[in-house]
């Protein structure tokens, strides 16, 4: 039997992948948009719906970045509302482990699991910076090297809390007058980050623990995923690099006595469909141009140069200035961290070789459209990618809100189903069922 593909729908985010200038682009905040995309994903029998998070608006040159979509809701609140208009779709919230406390986080995730009848997932992210910390009473306090240690502690503490209630804790037995088994919720957790104890308020959710998603690419992030995550949100959507990542991470599982299928690797990816290959290629080029407006092109090179480049012509050559590799001009984006000097050198080489203008260069280097073609060719490409161990499926990132997955669900999903590589209906009620994660952890008390 071929590998079964897992699919998730990413609500369009606040980077330039999301095209807001298209007349078909609707509100990024109106609940109707969330309902549309979630119900489309459920119609397509997707595994889950995914919401990203950013706890401070991004800034460039000390001012709020105004060229991309700005503004989004609190993830868990919207997902809880969506639980009321969907019945099977998994609901994945990105929630930061630095600017939340385990007690509160664990009860909110367990609550979503109850209110969705077992469909909750938590994408554990680890932003730590003082810039984001300025929005919180505790401020920014975490050294970058401590972020995974804090994330692991947060997750361990949350698991301790989820395990503090038995699965069958609530008896609600009128005849004996017993509502609950004794001692429920008792916990104590202590390590270098937390020292907490007491009685946890929220009984164990239908999944025991919500599905855990991890999104880091670093060695530390991979190790964290191998030891603790159920799903990886990966950024490797080109086959060769994806295959290497897949093998690297899956090979780490044995160390934690976990099986190959205990961790699903799902790269974020985009696709473009057309009635013919040519039409699809044409549309793909149009979308890339819409994603990189002249202003966006300049803002993008500014992020890497670390300088104000507003005087440069987006249709002209790259700036001859040397980049300023100091503090940088961008805040709140992981993209502009790392070795910016090397990036600039590579771009210069590329621009010279191809004769690219600034905008053409940005279109070239930011274009991530690995799957372009007719529904048939895209279905074949996706299937090949998974069967050859590039991934276990995909997190699809549409460029339009909220109708960006309509064509995929109508035209590609049926072909994947025909090939026998994607479900024609849900086989169980919970997200763990959809993902084939058959071994929910047992509660602590049962394990004793």
């Amino acid at each position: 039997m071929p590998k079964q593909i897992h699919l998730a729908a990413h609500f369009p985010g606040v980077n330039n992948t999301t095209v807001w200038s298209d007349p078909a682009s609707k509100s990024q905040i109106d609940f109707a948009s969330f309902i549309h995309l979630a119900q489309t994903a459920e119609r397509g029998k997707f595994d889950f719906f995914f919401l990203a998070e950013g706890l401070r608006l991004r800034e460039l040159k000390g001012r709020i970045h105004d060229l991309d979509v700005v503004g989004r809701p609190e993830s868990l609140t919207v997902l809880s509302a969506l639980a009321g208009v969907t019945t099977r779709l998994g609901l994945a919230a990105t929630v930061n482990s630095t600017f939340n406390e385990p007690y509160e986080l664990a009860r909110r995730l367990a609550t979503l699991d109850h209110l969705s009848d077992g469909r909750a997932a938590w994408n554990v992210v680890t932003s730590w910076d003082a810039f984001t910390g300025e929005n919180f009473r505790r401020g920014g306090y975490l050294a970058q090297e401590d972020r995974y240690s804090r994330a692991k502690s947060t997750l361990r503490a949350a698991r301790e809390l989820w395990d503090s209630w038995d699965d069958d804790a609530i008896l609600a037995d009128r005849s004996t007058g017993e509502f609950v088994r004794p001692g429920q919720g008792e916990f104590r957790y202590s390590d270098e980050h937390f020292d907490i104890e007491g009685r946890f308020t929220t009984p164990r959710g239908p999944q025991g623990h919500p599905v855990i998603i991890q999104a880091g690419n670093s060695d530390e992030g991979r190790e964290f995923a191998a030891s603790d995550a159920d799903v990886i949100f990966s950024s490797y959507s080109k086959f060769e690099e994806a295959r290497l990542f897949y093998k690297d991470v899956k090979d780490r599982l044995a160390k934690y006595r976990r099986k190959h299928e205990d961790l699903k690797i799902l790269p974020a990816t985009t696709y473009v469909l057309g009635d013919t290959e040519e039409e699809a290629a044409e549309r793909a080029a149009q979308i890339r141009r819409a994603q990189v407006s002249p202003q966006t092109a300049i803002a993008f090179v500014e992020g890497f140069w670390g300088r104000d480049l507003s005087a440069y012509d987006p249709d002209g050559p790259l700036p001859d200035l040397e980049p300023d590799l100091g503090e940088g001009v961008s805040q709140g984006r992981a993209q502009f961290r790392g070795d910016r000097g090397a990036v600039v050198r590579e771009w210069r080489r590329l621009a010279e070789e191809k004769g690219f203008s600034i905008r053409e260069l940005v279109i070239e280097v930011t274009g991530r459209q690995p799957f372009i073609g007719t529904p048939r060719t895209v279905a074949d490409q996706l299937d090949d990618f998974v069967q050859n161990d590039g991934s276990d499926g995909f997190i699809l990132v549409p460029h339009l809100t909220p109708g960006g997955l309509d064509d995929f669900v109508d035209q590609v999903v049926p072909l994947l189903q025909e090939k026998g590589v994607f479900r024609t209906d849900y086989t169980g009620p919970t997200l763990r069922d959809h993902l084939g994660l058959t071994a929910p952890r047992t509660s602590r008390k049962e394990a004793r």
Partner: protein
Amino acid sequence: MTGLHLAVALDGAGWHPAAWRDLLARPSELLSARYWSGLAAEAERGLLDFVTIEDAFALQSSRFEGPDDRTDQVRGRLDAVLVAARLAAATTHLGLVPTTSTTHTEPFHVAIGIASLDHVTRGRAGWRPQVSGRTPDAAHFGRRKFPRFDEAFYRAPGSAAFVAELFAEAADAVEVVRRLWDSWEDDAEIRDAETGRFIDRDKLHYIDFEGEHFSVRGPSITPRSPQGQPLVTALAHDVLPYEFAARSADVVYVTPHSREGTAEIIAQVRDAETRTGRTGEPLKIFADLVVFLGDDADGRKAELDELDGAELASDAEIFVGAPARLADLLLDWKAAGLDGFRLRPGTLTRDLEAITRALVPELQARGEFRDHYAETTLRARLGLERPASRYAAAP
């Protein structure tokens, strides 16, 4: 409408600790969406203004100062903001007012949570900020050491300063939340293809709150919500909380035990408004009442008291009797200057149904309660305007 406003406080199986043992209770479903949706639908059927959803970081207990070992009462609860959000699609008019802690929860998270609730309900969100000074709550977070908060401490001289501190911090938290709600002007989103700008960033504002307890920079990550400022409500039993409500809230819930007591409390609330220099709309004052309704109410309550091993005690007045008599009482107390009531059903769903199917028709027959929902937002239902953002330049 000149009649009264009516809200219902939802919590577990009801406000009697033995409520889950009522034959019509659904004790095994208290954590399910179906149960909560049913309650909300019933409240909406009765045209109620809003429901509140209780919350606390401490597991329910029969002891004030900490957990107990009882297994014969309801234990376990869900996050109130998420319960409210789950009810968005199950209702169309009902206001939804969850409780959160001002002591331990980050104001930024609360601000975006309640704003998001307002977006998903299209303007029906409210909020009840609540202080949590109890020692076990602090131990759940491990960040702060609180004094042992028991009766002895409460009577000791040092406790007043501690309580004042909690409320001062709560006022700061509400101020931060309110500023964040205003930090996006209504027309900040421009989608101007010409200049490539999605927003006009001059209409997004840093809130730069600097308080004694914390600072918050802003702006919010969430665009301004349908109501602009969701309805802020506070339960208050004493002068200090009255002042907190006067500074921070739109609605205050109070707990009088008689018509005369109602008048006294209203006078104290109005004094608190003067002392704190409140401007704009005066507080809407709601009285809380625990209610057991119907011909069999006496017997039902007595039976539950018996099962629980103690007579029900409450901070609020407990009413037991026929819906028509409750209507008399509500109208009598209202005449003392109340805007409405928040009823705490002794048992859910039985006493909620008595409210929506017997009390409401009784009040309607007397011309004292709406016969349909006229307004779409919760603020409008309470006669409150949609305020402009405090950061918007005057037109």
